């Protein structure tokens, strides 16, 4: 780690730890929102940033996770935290089924298909597919998380819960980034044909990236569902996917710190500028264009990995 980072991270950590003590519930809720989007952004980062696949349907996985939690919790009364892995699994399975036929598509086409997919999921949710999704009303009465008898209700509780999950996510994904899996993904993002030529089974890795990203998003869905206690299809529109997409791209695709920054900017800034209300979205749009023109790689692009070479002593 660079020297500046060694100071920066602990300071940030301390600030975040202290936040619930100083901030009012509104700003805490904003930070909670940011945290949730960090988790989602990081899950999309695997697909979009590391594997380089144009994916604009991430909200669908998020939705499946949230709805799985909602349905199981409201029908069978199982505590929300137990359902989290199930939600992740459901989203991952869905990704597996859906991604399998489209994984080989070229960039733009993949983009379009993912847009179509997220719209179909949303319409299915609104139309109360299989009779369990509650239609446009959504599902309400989802229980709050129950940690060994302690119910999480206030924004402060959720703050620690969410940000702990964020820390976990960051930790796991950093490990992933530097693992063989992560390297394979980066290789196939840079040059798919060469990667295939080097013996990497690109289809296999792409699919794995999709499934992993989806599963994690599904678990984020659980947190969302239990925090809001009601969910409806409106929260999972194509626009949500656009927001997630922007967080990754604008922040720096492929870089964990970039995604975190992206979440703060994309979700937090509009709150800071709440008073501008109607013009807010306009500024959003302009910012997107501006960013792409002047800093395509995002605010914090991924740093190249530095390997130290041991000098080889010349043999006499």
């Amino acid at each position, binding site marked *: 780690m660079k020297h500046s980072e060694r100071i920066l991270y602990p300071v940030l950590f301390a600030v975040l730890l202290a936040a619930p003590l100083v901030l009012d519930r509104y700003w805490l809720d904003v930070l909670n929102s940011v945290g949730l989007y960090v988790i989602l952004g990081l899950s999309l980062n695997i697909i979009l940033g590391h594997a380089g696949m*144009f994916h604009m349907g991430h909200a669908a996985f998020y939705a499946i996770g949230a709805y799985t939690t909602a349905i199981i919790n409201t029908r069978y009364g199982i505590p929300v935290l137990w359902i989290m892995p199930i939600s992740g699994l459901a989203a991952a399975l869905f990704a597996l089924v859906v991604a399998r*036929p*489209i994984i080989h*598509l*070229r*960039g*733009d*086409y993949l*983009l*379009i*298909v993912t*847009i*179509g*997919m997220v*719209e*179909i999921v949303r*319409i*299915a949710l*609104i*139309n109360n597919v299989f009779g369990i999704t509650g239609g446009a009303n959504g599902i309400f009465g989802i229980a709050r998380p129950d940690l060994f008898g302690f119910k999480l209700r206030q924004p402060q509780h959720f703050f620690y819960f969410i940000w702990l999950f964020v820390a976990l996510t960051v930790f796991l994904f950093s490990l992933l980034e530097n693992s063989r899996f992560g390297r394979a993904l980066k290789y196939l993002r840079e040059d798919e*044909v060469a990667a295939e030529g080097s013996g990497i089974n690109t289809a296999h890795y792409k699919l794995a990236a999709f499934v992993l990203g989806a599963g994690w998003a599904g678990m984020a869905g659980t947190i969302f569902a239990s925090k809001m206690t009601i969910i409806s299809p409106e929260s999972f529109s194509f626009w949500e996917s*656009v927001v997630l*997409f*922007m967080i990754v*791209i*604008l922040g720096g695709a492929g870089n964990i710190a970039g995604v975190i920054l992206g979440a703060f900017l994309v979700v937090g800034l509009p709150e800071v500028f709440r008073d501008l209300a*109607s*013009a807010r*979205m*306009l500024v*959003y*749009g*302009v*910012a*997107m*264009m*501006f*960013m*792409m*023109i002047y800093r*395509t790689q995002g605010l914090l692009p991924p740093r190249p990995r530095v390997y130290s070479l041991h000098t080889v002593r010349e043999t006499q």
Partner: protein
Amino acid sequence: MEQFFQQLTNGLAVGGIYALIALGYTMVYGVLKLINFAHGDLFTIGAYLGLTLLTSLALTDHVGGFLGVGLLALMVMGLVGIIGMLLERIAYRPLRESPRLSAVVSALGASIFFQNAIMLIYGAKFYVYPQDLLPKIPVYIFGMPVPLMRILILVASVVMMVALYLFVQKTKIGTAIRAAAIDQGAARLMGIDVNRVIMLVFCIGPALGGAAGMMVGIYYGQINFTMGWIYGLKAFTAAILGGIGNIPGAMVGGLLLGVIEALGAAYISIAWKDAIAFFVLIVILIVRPTGLLGERVAEKI
């Protein structure tokens, strides 16, 4: 059986509009390989500009029905064409050398910008075109009354498509456009001013979209700032269906999509209509990614 034909005509009429918007998408994609997300909003701008011009200039009072509307269409097309060129200059040209993804994001940003700009300028309410611009005589096909305007829209779409097709195939500039679509670098080497070609494409495509917007306004009457979203997405689907980059493909795709939607609504379910359309899109992309009329493009290694 009667319902089938009724729905078929319904579908063709709607498809005509999709086709017109799809033409714009397909042209831009053909040359720049860019999905211009802002195209749907250019369509909306066309609708709004049409209304503004209509009310401020009171054309139809001076010049009378068809001629007035025709003039209006030309004005709208000109204005939206200019906006299209500006869009290209500001949002896309700087990104010519950048990875494709950046242009897509910029396009999304442009779309958001336009939509909210319209909302801020005109307000959030629905606007309505004056009613009696064109005669509403129903024309009888197979014994069913079809409003004149629907046929007009279909005819206008076909005419514009044929004109565009001939332009691209037969004229020198059209050939330049096709050359740039195949390989920009080689086209430049041949002495073609690629920048000008692209500007032209961004003038024609949005102009067609704007004209479609105006027609939708006149026919359906009601416009609002979010209308570009759904039409844009459908038209986009239509372009893909027919083969993106392919002009007759856009026409075929548009009509086909309209018919699939209408029949899907009639025989399966209205509520799932859009999902059916998207599903068809996904199937086509998996089974035949180049679309129905598209050419196979070899992937360069």
